[in-house]
C-alpha cells in the first residue's frame, strides 16, 4: 500500500497552519463591525467557503466535459471528488449563513438568491451521488455522472438569475430590505486582509481535500482490481 506522497503530507500541515492563522485573524486581527457585532466575524469563513465551493463546482463541470471527450476514467474520479468536497463546502456555507442570519436578522433562513441557489446546488449534488449509486458499470456511471454534471451545471446560473429576478420584482417577505439585511457593509483594510487570507486558507484546504479524495478513489479502484484478480 502506498502512503501519502510527501507533497500531500506537507499540504496537510500547511492547511492546518493556515486555518489556525485564519481563525486568529478573524477573532483578533479584524475589527468588530459596528452594526452587527461579533457575529459578523463569521462572514469571513462563510463567503470564503461559498467561493471555494463554486470553485469545486467548476472543477467538476470541467472534469465531466473532459471525461466525455477522453473517456479516461481518471477524470471521473476528479469529477466525483470535486462534487463531494464542494457539497461539504456548501453545507458549511449554508450553516454559517444560518448562524449569521439569526442574531443579525432574527431568522434562520433568508430565501435570498445566493442562499437559495446554493441549496438547489446541494440538491443537484445529492441527486448526482444517488444517480451514481444506482449504476454498476463504471463506464456508464462515469458517462451519466458527466452528463448530469453538465446539465446541472448549466441550470445553476439560470436558476440564480431566475431567483434574482423573482426577488427584485417581488421583494423579500422575510427580513428587512435595509442594506444590513442584505448583508452589505463596507470593509476596512483589515477586514479585507482577513477576508483574502480566509479565501486563501480555504482554497488550500480544498486542494488538500481534493487530493485526498482523488487518492481514495484511485486506491478504491486498485482494491477492485485486486478483488477481480483473486476471484479469477
Amino acid at each position, binding site marked *: 500500500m502506498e502512503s501519502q506522497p510527501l507533497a500531500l503530507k506537507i499540504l496537510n500541515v500547511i492547511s492546518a497552519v493556515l486555518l489556525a492563522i485564519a481563525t486568529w485573524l478573524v477573532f483578533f486581527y479584524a475589527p468588530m463591525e459596528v452594526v452587527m457585532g461579533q457575529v459578523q466575524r463569521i462572514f469571513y469563513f462563510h463567503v470564503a467557503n461559498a467561493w471555494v465551493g463554486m470553485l469545486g463546482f467548476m472543477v467538476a463541470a470541467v472534469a465531466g466535459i473532459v471525461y466525455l471527450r477522453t473517456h479516461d476514467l481518471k477524470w471521473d474520479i476528479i469529477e466525483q471528488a470535486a462534487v463531494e468536497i464542494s457539497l461539504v463546502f456548501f453545507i458549511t456555507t449554508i450553516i454559517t449563513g444560518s448562524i449569521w442570519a439569526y442574531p443579525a436578522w432574527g431568522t434562520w433562513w433568508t430565501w435570498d438568491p445566493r442562499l437559495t441557489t446554493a441549496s438547489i446546488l446541494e440538491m443537484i449534488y445529492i441527486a448526482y451521488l444517488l444517480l451514481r449509486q444506482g449504476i454498476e*458499470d*463504471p*463506464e456508464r456511471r462515469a458517462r451519466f455522472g458527466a452528463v448530469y454534471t453538465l446539465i446541472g451545471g448549466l441550470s445553476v446560473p439560470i436558476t440564480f438569475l431566475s431567483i434574482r429576478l423573482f426577488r427584485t420584482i417581488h421583494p423579500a417577505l422575510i427580513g428587512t430590505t435595509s442594506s444590513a439585511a442584505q448583508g452589505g457593509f463596507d470593509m476596512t483594510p483589515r477586514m479585507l486582509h482577513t477576508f483574502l487570507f480566509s479565501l486563501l486558507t480555504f482554497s488550500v484546504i480544498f486542494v488538500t481535500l481534493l487530493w485526498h479524495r482523488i487518492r481514495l478513489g484511485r486506491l478504491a*479502484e486498485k482494491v*477492485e*482490481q485486486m478483488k*477481480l484478480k483473486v476471484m479469477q
Partner: protein
Amino acid sequence: MIEVRKLVKRFGLKTVLRGLDFKVQEGEFVALLGPNGAGKTTFLRILASLSRPSLGEIRIAGYALPAQAAAVRRRLGVVSHMPLLYGDLTAEENLRFFGRMYDVEHLDQRIAEVLELVGLAARRRDLVRTFSRGMQQRLAIGRAVLHDPEVMLFDEPHTGLDQDACDMLDKVLRDVAARGRTVVMTSHDLARVEDLASRFDVLSRGVIAASASRQSLGKNNVLTFYRQALQEA
C-alpha cells in the same frame, strides 16, 4: 464479410474479451458456442454495433466499426433473445415502424412477403402482446430480415421456446440461411445448431478457443469437439 482483429472489451476493471480474432466469409453459417458468461452476448452486441470495443478492429461488409456504424447497421439484421417488439402495436404496425426506420422501399409489399416467410400472415392485425413467445420470435426474425441485410446475428434465439416453436423457428432459420446470408448464431444448446451451422467456433476465456467446419467434423462429433475445446482452453 466479418473481420475481427484483436478485439478487447473491458467493463471497468473486468476484461471480458481478450484479443479475440474472428473471420467469417460470405454465406457461412457460424455457430458460436461457449459456456455461460464466456462473453458470447458481449461479442455479439459489439458486432451488432450496440456496444463499443475497448480495443481492436472490426470490419463488417467492408465497413469499420464503430466509425462507420450507420453503414454497418443498414446491412445487419439482429435477433436477440428479447423480441424487441412493441406489444401494443399489431404485427403489421411493428413491421411498418421498423421499415420506416430502415427506409425500406415498397414497404407494404415487403411486409406481406415477410409475414408470409415467418408464417404469421394470418395474424398481421393482431396485437403483439397476444402472441406466444414463439410467434414473437418469428416476428422478430421478420423484423430482422425486413431490410434484406447481408449479415444476420442471432443471440440464443431458441431461448424459452417449446419443441414445436423451435421446429418452426428452425424452418425459418434454414430459409433465411439458404438465401446466401452470412449468419452468426450463439447458442449454448448444441442440439439446436448442429443441423443448421456450417462452422462451429468455441468462445472461451475471452478468445476463440477452437474453430471447425461441419465437413471436417461430421455430425456426431460436434459434442466431442466442443467438450475438448473447453477442456483445452
